[in-house]
């Protein structure tokens, strides 16, 4: 198997920078917009990638001739494409294990030596206030983001939320997740 091209190797190095930056950033960050830390990590890793690509020779000093992409621009954007796509994967996995109920269930199951009943699992998601742990974080974020407004004991969708809701409904129908009205 030949060694991959320069862009792919540098993209792999930049992804390590991305994970390290995100890990450091999330340890320091105290706000509730953590996605900014992840986007910042992507920006810094893309900068590292671009700087390394500009500074290093096409064969990185060790690549065989057959492993060098002849077109430098294609090599650069190929690596950048992989960097962004893998970042998307990291983003999705991060939110899945962080806020998703699936990971929470699996973690609860793996902790319990004698299994867990459904009722015991429910307790994992209950909070003292009226919203469950699944909604406690999301409803305020939608309200702060201008998608919802709380008025007279109910939540109302604002124009921004309607536009987003229409788009999401459209995509959900397109992927077969919702029956057509």
């Amino acid at each position: 198997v030949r060694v991959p091209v320069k862009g792919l190797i540098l993209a792999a190095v930049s992804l390590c920078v991305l994970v390290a930056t995100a890990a450091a950033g999330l340890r320091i960050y105290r706000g509730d917009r953590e996605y900014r830390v992840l986007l910042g990590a992507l920006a810094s890793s893309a900068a590292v990638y671009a700087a390394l690509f500009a500074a290093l020779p096409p064969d990185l000093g060790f690549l065989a001739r057959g492993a060098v992409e002849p077109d430098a621009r294609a090599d650069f954007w190929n690596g950048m494409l992989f960097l962004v796509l893998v970042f998307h994967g990291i983003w999705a996995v991060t939110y899945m294990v962080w806020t998703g109920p699936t990971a929470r269930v699996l973690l609860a199951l793996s902790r319990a030596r004698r299994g867990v009943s459904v009722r015991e699992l429910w307790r994992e998601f209950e909070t003292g206030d009226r919203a469950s742990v699944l909604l406690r974080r999301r409803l305020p974020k939608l309200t702060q983001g201008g998608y919802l407004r709380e008025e007279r004991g109910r939540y109302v969708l604002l124009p921004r939320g309607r536009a987003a809701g229409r788009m999401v409904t459209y995509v959900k129908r397109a992927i077969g997740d919702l029956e057509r009205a």
Partner: protein
Amino acid sequence: VAKGLLLSACLVAVWAAAVRLLLRPRSEAPLNVMVTTWVPVVPVYVLAYRLTPADLGVLPAPLAATPMPLGLLNGVLALAVLSLTVVQVYYHFHNSITLRLLTEFARAPHHALTPAQIEAVCGVQVLLDERLRALERARLLRRRGDRLYPTAAGSLAAGIARVWRAVLRVSP
């Protein structure tokens, strides 16, 4: 690398369209459909790469000069990463609680819901029932009597989640 990227992007688009046709509304096992239909995509890609000209009839000469094994392998890698991205986007729209909330609000009369109505459509009971069924279908958990246990794959997934949470130091 351009030829491999173009071919893999086209094949992923065709595969995604085929998956969409095969998935019924509220399909019980979307991942099975995706995996089963993805398997033949790789040999089709290799065959397409071997049988088509280096410039695909459209690429400028500098982009068609990639050594064959390199372009082929890069395309296989692109095929895998693009397909995973499609799967992740699908599951994001399928599973995201925030997007589900927006859909339920968009479909509700006067675009308004009380906390009790929200709990009824996106509450713990509804979501947990759905996820438990999905985890069981994916063979990540098994039921014994009224108790749930992780399978070996479920324990592995939990271990990965635990490590990733520790790396980024995130907790719900």
